[in-house]
């Protein structure tokens, strides 16, 4: 039986009075790459933030790495890596300094930390810019720094919220390969994205959240066969009741002409 690394049981979350997640339940197993899909505002980032311990569920049970959340959030944060959706960084720090801060906060041994920073920056082609302030970095370079910071402490669970945003083609290919390699090494990856063909390629299993409810939890192949669709994009559109795009496109074009 697969070892579970994160469990959600009937989790409810509200921002003020609006309920964002309605009794969501799922499990993430060790060594899995799980895609987290959903339209904008469906609750994907909220789900990830609850796993991270940044938000606390209103009700239900959450456990990560066998530890209850949010009670043990500090211990959980030590064992997860998180790449947030928005690249919020301390712009006045250099890339090297930001990674050092993140590694030290995760209590990584100093020699090991410097070695890992050097290796990761070299792999990401950022060695030459390691002493430049982050406000001089391009969007893709900032994204690489976020990914590097999430990996430095060798976490058990890696949460990626749109990780390929702003990356060039070569870097994106490398990250996809890295995800597969990390999963093969026993790391669990929760991958939230709107780029469905990438999700289809890298993920073993897919969770689809729509209007705060979990509407699908299966492998891409099973989802395609059960819905009779040929691509994950078509499955997604069907399950989320997406309207036909043509009338919408026509309406926008007509509005621009008026």
């Amino acid at each position, binding site marked *: 039986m697969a070892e579970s690394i994160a469990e959600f049981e009937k989790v409810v979350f509200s921002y003020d009075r609006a309920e964002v997640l309605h009794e969501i339940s799922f499990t993430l197993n060790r060594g899995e790459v799980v895609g987290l899909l959903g339209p904008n505002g469906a609750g994907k980032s909220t789900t990830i933030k609850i796993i991270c311990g940044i*938000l606390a569920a209103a009700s239900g049970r959450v456990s990560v790495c066998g530890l209850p959340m949010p009670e043990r959030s*500090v211990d959980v944060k030590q064992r997860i890596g998180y790449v947030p959706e928005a690249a919020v960084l301390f712009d*006045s720090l250099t890339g090297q300094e930001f990674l050092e801060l993140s590694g030290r906060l995760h209590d990584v041994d100093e020699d090991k930390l410097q070695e890992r920073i050097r290796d990761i920056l070299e792999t990401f082609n950022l060695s030459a810019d390691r002493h430049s302030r982050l406000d001089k970095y391009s969007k893709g370079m900032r994204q690489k720094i976020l990914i590097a910071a999430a990996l430095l402490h060798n976490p058990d669970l890696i949460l990626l919220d749109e990780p390929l945003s702003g990356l060039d083609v070569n870097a994106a290919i490398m990250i996809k390969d890295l995800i597969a390699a990390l999963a093969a090494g026993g790391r669990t990856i929760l991958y939230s994205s709107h780029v469905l063909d990438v999700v289809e390629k890298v993920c073993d299993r897919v969770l689809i959240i729509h209007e705060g409810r979990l509407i699908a939890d299966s492998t891409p192949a099973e989802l395609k066969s059960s819905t009779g669709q040929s691509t994950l994009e078509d499955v997604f559109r069907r399950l989320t009741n997406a309207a036909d795009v043509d009338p919408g496109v026509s309406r926008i074009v007509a509005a621009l002409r008026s």
Partner: protein
Amino acid sequence: MNAIRDVVTRNFVTRWFRGPAVSRLLARFGIDSRRYWLLLDLFGELSDRGEMLDQLGSNRLSLKMATRIYFAFSVIMTVALAATQVPFAAYLGVFLLFTTLILLSILLLETGNSLLNPVEALVLAHQPINGATYTAAKLTHLLLILLYLVPGLNVAPAIGALALRGSHWWWAPVLLLAAFGIGITVAFCCCATFGWLLRFIPARRLKATAQLVGSLPLLGMMWMSQLEKLFGRINLRALIPGGPMARRGVGVAVAGLAVAGIVGGLRSLSADFLIRVSSVTRGGASAGAKIRRSLTGSLIARFFGGQPARAGSAFLSRMMLRDWHFRRQILPMMLPLLIGLAGAASTSWRTDPFARHFSVMHVLPHIFGFLLLFICSLLPYGNDYKGGWLFLTVPASSFSGFARGVWATLWLRVVAIPHIIMLIALAPIWGMVDCSLFVAYSAAVASIYLSLVLRMVENVPFTRQPDASRGTALLPILLMGGAAAGIVVAAQFFLVFRSVWIVLAVTVAAAAGAWLLTRSSLTAFAESMRFHLSLASQETGAIYKEIS
């Protein structure tokens, strides 16, 4: 000198202060010493590199400036009290009360700024830092303010105490120690207050509530005499039991409750803060779902420059209401002005300004001017300054209309509408002619102020990073402006309000002056916005002017 400092830092700070003894002490309070020092170093580094400029506790330059100003105040008070030879108890009480009120007003605002708008907390929220460690680092940040302000406020009084009759050498250290004790208590109280707020106030109302709480010490200072009367009427002595033992019991109970309140608030802050920070920073009341077409916006678009003017008007109106930094700064500036005005006007609003008696109404046009000065001094700065990129994509021709939209909104909301209300309210009392003339005069003078202070808004409003040192830099401008306004008010009363005809002539001249100054200010404002966005360079403009 630097070598000596390095040796002291290495031997004293690193070995002892960050040593195992202090770590064990911190661990007793649930604070992870390693991460605590990392956070303190981080805050210091970010401050040195200008990333936390809007936080006074991290901005040593602003702190030094504020310390000098308070030192100057305390020297004046010391000289006054030492000259009258008041008893030491009264002397001590005055300075401790002064210290408490000043620190409370500064630290409450700083705590709110630091906890409710924490850019660093968003980056740190998913890091393995427990609440106690983060709270301790924030508290240390507040204590840094004390290291500057408490000596600034109390060194002169401590020395002055030695000049009192029957003085002892220990009066000076007693005063300083008591002031530090009060400072530390105030810092704990501020953090505890926000701990309780965090627990009981919904996230979307937290920022607005914090701003009101931050204004309370200021209101307390202004209503001190009313509070004294209230407490006098309640007669607290009669409510407290008579015997010394019973009184001691009441004292112990009150102290116990206060300590419990502080401990409870701090525990709440350290338990919840990093978990709730995402909701807190996301917080903000709903802007409403209805699409509203503002009448002001339509008027401005019609008469002041089309859609760019409407854009300027809508942008300014919404950001003034919603920008956290702007609201946080404007409230403490505006409240004393408006409350003082209301208090003064309540006694003399019936007096006709042409009745040859000086009344608060003669100051009114200049109060509008100061209000506009406050607003325009804050307009360049905003929390969402990074959103300024949008203006880089705007056609250069739109900036002129945008500038007119900004000006028209300020003029309509701060000058025109209040004066129309005044006209309606005061015409039946002063008579239509006197009231119309005074309102026209006041509006013309306020319009001159607006045209002058608009030059302070050099860039697109709300697109520059907030900077705490601006507040202290504004103080000399306010002092000079206040002195100049005082001279103008006196000249206006003795030279202008002698005859209706003189007032009429000055009104016409002021209106014409306002018209010309506004035209030139609007051109300068539009050009400076483009210049700060690097859409136009000053050099090119200068060469162009020279050639033409």
